[in-house]
Each structure stands twice: as C-alpha cells, then as structure tokens.
C-alpha cells in the first residue's frame, strides 16, 4: 500500500518527492569522482557517498601531482625560482612570476620605476582576463554548452600572443626579471594591445550574452554549490569565490601593490555564493580588468623598464659581450652569487583565483632558507565537501569547475 502512495507522489511532483526523501530505498553507494576524469579538470579525487543522485558526504584526496616546490626552492638561486612559480596556477602564470619578483624587490628594497609598475599592472590584468576566460568557459562546458568553450579561446590566443611579444613564451611564461622587464614593450606589442583593447569588449559581450541571461544556464547554476559569507571566511576563501559570497576582499585594494591604488575600478560582489554568482563575478572582473588596462596603458609613464639593481637584474646581452662589469654581474647572477639581506618577507598579490602569497625567509645565503607559497586553492578547496553535500553529482562537477581549483597550484 505504502509503495503505491510513494509512486503516486513521485508521479505528481517528482522534485518534491526526491527532496522530501531522506534516502531512496536506503541504498548508499560509494563512487569515485576523479582522480583522472575529464570532468574534474585536473587530478582531484573525491570519494563520494551518494544516495541515488544526492551526495551525502565526500572525502578529498590531494597531492597527486606534488612536485616539492618548497623543497626545490631551498636549493635554487633567487632568479631561478621564477620558473617554479609558473607551474603553480598555470592559467595565469604572469601573476605568479611578477608576484615573486615583487617579493624579492621588497626583500632587497629596490626602488621600482613607475613605468615598471604600470607595465606589470597591464600584464597581470591580461593574465587575469585569460584565467577568468578559461574558468568561465569551462563552467559552460560542464553545463553542456561546448560553444562557450571554443568561443573565448580566440581572445585568449590574443592574450597569449601578447605574452609572447613580451617574453617569448605562452603558458609557462617566466615573464620579467627581479627589478623590471628584460625589454620595453615592443612596437608590435603596442599594436597588438591596441587592437585587443578595441576588439575584445565586443567579442566578450557577445560571448557573455550567450550565457549570462540564458534560461538553461541560469537554472543549472543558480543555487548550485552555494556558500555563506561566514563559512567562506572561515574556510579562507579568497578571490572571486569569496567575492561571490558577498565579501569584498581584494588584495589589490586592501594591501595595494604595484601602484594599484592609482586606478579606478570596482570590486564586484555576489549575493548567494553559488556557481552563477561566481561566474558573474568573474565576468564583471574581466570588464574591470579591461578598464584597468585602459587606464594603465593610457597613462603609461615615461621612464625605464627596469630598476637600478645591477646585482639582481641580468645585464643586457650586448653589454655582457663588450663590457667587463656587465660580464661580472652576469656571471654572479647566473651562478647565484647575489648578496641578499637576511630577513622575512610576506608579500601577496591578487592571483587569478585568490590571494597568492609568498612567505620568504632569507638567511643571507644564495638560496631562500624557506619559501612558502600561500596557494589560494589549497586553502579554499577544503570548503568543497561542505558546498556539495546535499547536491547532485552533476552539481558537484560544475561547483568544482566554478571554484577554479588548479591542480598544479593545489599540490605545489
């Protein structure tokens, strides 16, 4: 008799039926989400206990691609640590590189020309756009809209061409030097950046309109993987994930670096902290980044593209061949024989997915005594089980992609 009543309830209102039920037939299954599955976008394992489609609990395993960066950094001379930082959040490696250079500049107390600051701001904001484009388009894929994935890749390609113009590399950029850049912006860079600033907003808005008010996308993402501001703070969320929960913490404003205080931009915040809000916050941040680039590029100060720190900044190649002092400095820097003051520095930048910090202890030796990275997603990924409990498996997938968890950064 009871069975019939249940069936009736199921047919009348399926969603109410499933939500009202504690368990379906009391069967609880254990499944692996990951570690290697296309839907996880990286090497993450989550052992889910599910009741039908509903997640009851989840247990995380991390560390699959741990590469001992902090141990490696204890052996490398300071300028050789930049390539390690590339491999943290590889969707926005210029931010990691420049953050590391700024940490070093704080330690050696170098005076950085305004032009370098502005050039850095332009590059970091380009990197933020590239990072957010990937993350937001992947949310599209996971909700079933493959077009939204291919579309922004054309724009991302333009950003990568800009990186190439500055440093010659695209993904693991190793951009810049301690003290500035290896060269000034080239004429090609200027042309490409101008055309990017001209064409990007239009292409971006076209792509944005594909999803922003799309009924299917909204139904799929609203209320998915929500987190309250209190829990978000407790779990140490930073970056767009925290702002989507309604907390307006941004390192660029709270602890300004690289002359960010010169620019006028807003910090978008969400309300519900769900996947849709995270998506929307990133979209708005892309628009703000374009605004910042326009301001920085429009007011690009005259001056040098490097600071006067010959002990740390690799000299020009032509000078190395023709000039004794330059050769000496070149040799010293390459062999890691730089004189670094002892001390402890913490410096953080607003990375693509949160506060990326560098805690550096120097004892005056040629390598750091200890270097610890504050990897934002290592810290906020802890919130994931709480965010997906009570949700369905397909929600867990889009929640993971909307959190912008990067395996390389998580596992260091």
């Amino acid at each position, binding site marked *: 008799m009871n069975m019939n009543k249940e069936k009736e309830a199921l047919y009348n209102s399926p969603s109410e039926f499933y939500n009202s039920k504690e368990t379906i037939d009391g069967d609880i299954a254990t499944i692996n989400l990951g570690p290697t599955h296309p839907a996880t976008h990286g090497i993450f394992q989550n052992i889910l206990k599910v009741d039908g489609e509903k997640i009851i609990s989840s247990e995380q395993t991390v560390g699959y691609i741990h590469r001992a960066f902090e141990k490696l950094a*204890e*052996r*490398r001379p300071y300028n050789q640590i930049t390539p390690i930082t590339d491999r943290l959040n590889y969707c926005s490696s210029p931010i990691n590189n420049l953050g590391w250079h700024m940490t070093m500049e*704080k330690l050696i107390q170098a005076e950085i020309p305004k032009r370098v600051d502005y050039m850095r701001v332009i590059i970091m904001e380009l990197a933020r756009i590239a990072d957010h484009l990937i993350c937001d388009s992947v949310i599209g894929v996971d909700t079933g809209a493959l077009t939204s994935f291919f579309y922004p890749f054309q724009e991302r390609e333009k950003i990568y061409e800009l990186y190439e113009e500055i440093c010659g590399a695209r993904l693991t950029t190793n951009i810049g030097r301690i003290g500035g850049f290896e060269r000034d912006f080239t004429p090609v860079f200027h042309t490409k950046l101008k055309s990017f600033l001209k064409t990007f907003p239009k292409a971006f808005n076209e792509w944005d309109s594909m999803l922003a008010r799309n009924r299917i996308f909204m139904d799929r993402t609203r209320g998915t993987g929500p987190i309250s501001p209190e829990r978000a703070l*407790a779990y140490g969320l930073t970056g767009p994930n925290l702002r989507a929960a309604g907390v307006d913490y941004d390192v660029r404003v709270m*602890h300004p670096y690289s002359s960010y205080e010169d620019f006028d931009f807003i910090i978008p915040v969400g309300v519900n902290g769900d996947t849709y809000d995270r998506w929307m916050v990133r979209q708005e941040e892309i628009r703000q980044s374009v605004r910042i680039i326009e301001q920085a590029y429009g007011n690009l100060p005259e001056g040098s593209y490097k600071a006067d720190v010959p002990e740390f900044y690799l000299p020009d190649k032509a000078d190395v061949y023709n000039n004794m002092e330059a050769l000496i400095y070149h040799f010293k820097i390459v062999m890691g024989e730089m004189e670094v003051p002892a001390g402890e520095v*913490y410096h953080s930048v607003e990375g693509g997915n949160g506060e990326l910090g560098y*805690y550096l202890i120097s004892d005056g030796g040629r390598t750091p005594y200890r270097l610890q990275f504050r990897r934002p997603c290592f810290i906020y990924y802890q919130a994931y089980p709480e965010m997906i409990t009570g949700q369905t498996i397909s929600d867990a997938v889009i929640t993971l992609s909307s959190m912008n968890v990067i395996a390389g950064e998580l596992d260091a």
Partner: protein
Amino acid sequence: MLNNEALLTQLEGLFSSNILSAEINFDLLTVEVPTSKIHDIIAQLQKDENLSFGFLTLIGAVHYPDSTDREFAVVYHLDSWKNKVRLRLKVFLPLSNPSVDSITDLFPCANWMERESYDFFGVIFNNHPDLRRILNEDSMDYFPLRKEYALEDGTREDKDDRFFGRV
C-alpha cells in the same frame, strides 16, 4: 587603519607578559609568543572588536636545526581587514616535543595548513580533528622539509653540494 607601532602598543596592552619579542620586519609586525598560549592569543585577537583579526592568511613551519630547543617555528599570518594590517605570530617548539595546540576550532581553514606542516616537518597539532599526511604518500616515514634531508641524491658523486647552494 592601524600602523605597526600602534598595533604593537595595543598588543602589549592586551598580552603584556606573553610577548616574548617583537620586531617590525619589512612592514610586518612579528611577535613571538609562548607556545602554550598561542590558541588563546589567536582566539582573543579574533574576538577583539578593535583588532578583529578575522582572517587567517597562512600557517607554516620552519626548521632551524642549529638552535637548541627551538628547532621548529610555527608561523601564523593573520589579517585584520578592519585595520588593513597584517600580523605575524611565531611560536618555537623543541625537537623533543614538537607540538602546539591546533587552531582548527577558530579557523576551519587551518585544517589543511596544519596537516601540511605536519606532513613536511612533523609538527604535531594537539586537538586537530584529522592529523594525517596531505601531499605526500601515507607510508612515508620521514618529514621531507626538515633540513637534514639533502636536496640531491646522496649517492651521486659528480655533484658536490657545496657548489650548488646550501650544504
């Protein structure tokens, strides 16, 4: 806005006898406190309405093999958004008993950061809900970021460690 000097004055008012040393290091106030008091101090800093250090930025450990009975340091970075100021707290632990109270009950995000410090340095966090290795494999029987573990394979003869950084 609070500057580091004003912050130090306030901290001295709150925990006068518990401040073992204090210095300002590259715009960041570093305060050393007794190991047994760290939980209470962070709890008070978090609750205090004027200071309101409501955000835990980072927990990390450091190994100093040469300082007797102060072999490990556990370093806490706290952030007060209200005052736009950061604070670094340090405790030192002896090798014989490298344990300190966990602050997971105050900041849930401390969970993995403490596990990481345990994983790489062997620092024990008392009252931690789940103190296991996190990035390294579970069967590992040493703590790799301690200084006694060489960076190079010890059996190699073609590389002399003295020429490649720290011995």
